[in-house]
């Protein structure tokens, strides 16, 4: 007889937990054994005794937290089945950021897939999402409302390039999360033929170098020299979202404030942040892709970890799929947790 899904996966204060394998997935507090889906700081935290993740995710954690971010590490090769306790786990590309993976857990004929964060849209900087058929699908719902329909990213990038052409005397300051979004925007700019240097905020530098070392061509990406800011008329500058309106951005020539995020789809949200050129570019699935992915996995049961859970649960229910919201805390909406963290650090520094 097949096991009940809750024997394979259950919810604890630390995060999702697999009793049969005795490990957590993306725990928000230090645990004995953690399996990590991807390197964003709300999913990949330092201080676990042992960490299993893809090679790139382990390297990203090393870049962010230093080499000793965990007691021990184990690399999970994509597509390979690995025995952990009484279960088998398999990492498959999730299309979210470089190194991101879904984790399939299988025992007694039942397969549960923890998707982590994922997207189906094109991204030149990471492997595309692969559908993993399963019985229970654990999904996020960051953009789990039918108003979130991400447009073609190329059109968004062209919007930026058109603005640069129209306002050559101004600097375009693009807020983008340091891991994934920033590099994706740069890669898209290169694909659209932009061959000028793309200037980087210092906080972007190491991860961008890491992407380059992993073979993602991003071209010339010099770091912004503080004293040279006023000379960057006509330039594109990529920085963390918390910097687009901060003291740092002030010295650029008449900056155009841009922000690359799925949240930019909602105008009020963009206006609230004082964004002048919203770029709707997201590393998460939009509504249509969330629904489509749930269908394609063939799962009879869906758990929704965080985001706009209610709408997605409602959709599942009306489509004959059992679903429940987990209301998990500690996971940001498209990097907002990261942003908040950065802001706190900054405030501490300024005081």
């Amino acid at each position, binding site marked *: 007889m097949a096991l009940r899904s809750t024997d394979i996966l259950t919810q604890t204060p630390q995060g999702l937990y697999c009793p049969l394998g005795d490990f957590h997935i993306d725990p928000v507090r230090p645990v004995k054994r953690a399996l990590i889906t991807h390197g964003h700081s709300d999913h990949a935290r330092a201080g676990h005794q042992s960490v299993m993740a893809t090679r790139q995710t382990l390297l990203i954690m090393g870049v962010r937290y230093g080499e000793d971010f965990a007691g021990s590490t184990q690399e999970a090769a994509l597509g390979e089945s690995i025995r952990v306790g009484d279960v088998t786990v398999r990492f498959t590309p999730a299309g979210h950021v470089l190194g991101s993976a879904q984790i399939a857990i299988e025992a007694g004929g039942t397969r549960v897939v923890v998707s982590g964060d994922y997207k189906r849209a094109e991204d030149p900087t990471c492997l595309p999402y692969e559908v993993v058929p399963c019985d229970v699908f654990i999904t996020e719902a960051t953009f789990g409302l039918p108003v979130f329909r991400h447009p073609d990213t190329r059109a968004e990038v062209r919007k930026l390039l058109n603005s640069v052409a129209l306002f050559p005397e101004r600097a375009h300051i693009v807020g983008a999360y340091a891991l994934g979004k920033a590099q994706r925007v740069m890669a898209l700019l290169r694909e659209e033929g932009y061959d000028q240097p793309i200037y980087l905020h210092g906080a972007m530098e190491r991860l961008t170098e890491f992407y380059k070392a992993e073979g993602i061509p991003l071209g010339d990406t010099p770091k912004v020299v503080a004293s040279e800011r006023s000379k960057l008329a006509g330039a594109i500058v990529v920085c963390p979202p918390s910097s687009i309106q901060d003291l740092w*951005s002030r010295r650029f020539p008449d900056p155009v404030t841009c922000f690359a995020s799925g949240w930019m789809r909602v105008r009020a949200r963009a206006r609230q942040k004082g964004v002048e050129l919203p770029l709707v570019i997201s590393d998460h699935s939009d509504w249509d892709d969330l629904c489509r992915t749930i269908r394609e996995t063939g799962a009879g049961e869906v758990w929704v970890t965080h985001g706009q859970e209610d709408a997605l649960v409602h959709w599942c229910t009306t489509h004959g799929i059992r679903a429940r919201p987990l209301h998990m805390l500690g996971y940001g909406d498209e990097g907002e947790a990261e942003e908040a963290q950065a802001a706190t650090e900054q405030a501490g520094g300024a005081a």
Partner: protein
Amino acid sequence: MNRFAALLDRLMFEPRRNAKLRLLMDYFSHTPDPDRGYALAAMTGALMFKEAKPGLIRGLVEERTDPELFRMSYHYVGDLAETVALIWPAPGHDAAARIANSADRPSPPQEGTGQAPAIGHNNPPPHVPTLTEVIEALATTSKSDLPARVAGWMDALDETGRWALIKLITRELRVGVSARLAKTAVAQMGQIEPDEVELVWHGLEAPYEELFAWVEGRGPKPESGNPAPFRPSMLSHPLEDEDFGKLDASEFLAEWKWDGIRLQAASGHGSDGRPVRRIYSRTGEDVSRAFPDLVEALAFEGAIDGELLIVREGRVQSFNVLQQRLNRKAVTPKLIAEFPAHLRVYDILFEGEEDLRALPFAERRRRLEALVTRLDDPRIDLSPMVPFSSWEDLAAARADPAAVGAGPDADAIEGCMVKRANSPYLPGRPKGYWYKWKRDPYLVDAVMMYGQRGHGKRSSFYSDYTFGVWRGGPGEEELVPVGKAYHGFTDEELVKLDRYVRNHTVKRFGPVREVEYGRDRGLVLEVAFEGLQRSTRHKSGVAMRFPRINRIRWDKPAAEADRIETLEKILERGEQEVHPLKDQEA
């Protein structure tokens, strides 16, 4: 249509006037006729669709979406047009039709050609309508055919296109572009003065091909088909203390500065001989429809300049009363009877066909006096001159208008206008001719409570400050917010204020920071304002008119800031007119 939508989308987020102009000019220069002309019509409010109403959109979306999902979405987005635009289940959204990570993704359908590349095997390509198609169809399609037509466009457009379509239908563009700004962009294309466009505007109709041909040097200047056109208003400069030493009082004339709305009344006759009478705002907007009672009184030919006031039984009412008439959408006989519009005139630009603008002000004044006498209509009268022989005289008059002939109307006076006797009537704000000498503002010392990020150039600064005054007895004093100001300081002071907010933050709410304040800490701001009104919307019960930061009192302890009683006293003195919407430059 998508191009127009992209323009609106960009304009909506762009706070800078010059950048808006660039975006508009870029659009007008790269968009063919008649699309650009219809865009201009949409932005100048020249379009009217009889059958297309907001309810139509709501009906369409309700048929197509899960009501529960729609409710959650609307709740989240907060704006109906945007919710509908985003949630609209266009055929391309069908999950199966989406192909990601694939090199042979379909290219977007081509606008207006109807020859878009096929995106499915059996589906006809969606036809993305041009702006012209949309506008023409909205004007001509019957009520019964309209829903299907609109639904077809919604299917073919992208999210931004749908959003713009709904804004067109509801006639609420709200992208921060005034009719004047749109016309200015057209004028700049041909390096001509915006006022030149204004002069010919009323003879033109959408899609304005004649106008574009003219500014692009391909055609003649269009005839001004308007027998009662707007002529650009002449504006004044504030009189500064140092000016008095430089200006010779004997070369000037003075009038009261009325606290109303600046208007220009123009009257002529059409080719059929019938009178054409129009009333314009200071910026050239035709507001005739709001003042039928005044239009009726324009029994002259020419153009006169004056102030709109409400006069009851010969007495000028406060701005507060005027505001009650301005805020109404429907102009009913009852409204007119209760709030009778009055024009108090102070200049004449044209008499019949004769352009008087080059004449000296004193001469124009004589012509105006004669005209008003001939008119003999209680709804139009002269703004009296204020006699004076020295600046000291005038200062005394300004301090107490009632004593110098203004009588009970003194409450509606906000200072003096000082005009050079030989000044011609010039468009815009020429230097050295007209001055406004406003009554001294009220001052209050308040404590900064919150700082908010500004917009545009100031988006990296905390530039909008909420301030409060003390209330409550000894030991129970608390600060109660009384207003918010975002100007009055210099750029250097802004840098300091911004730094102050950042270094004294105790709490954050999105773009707002609460700063430290209390009896023993906090920053005192000397706030200047023009008047006070009781307000139920503010915790303090008062609302300020035109508050600005007059001085930063780095030296003053917070405990010594003013108390709410100071404001109460001003209120009791009967200063109650507050109109946040009124143009300060009037």
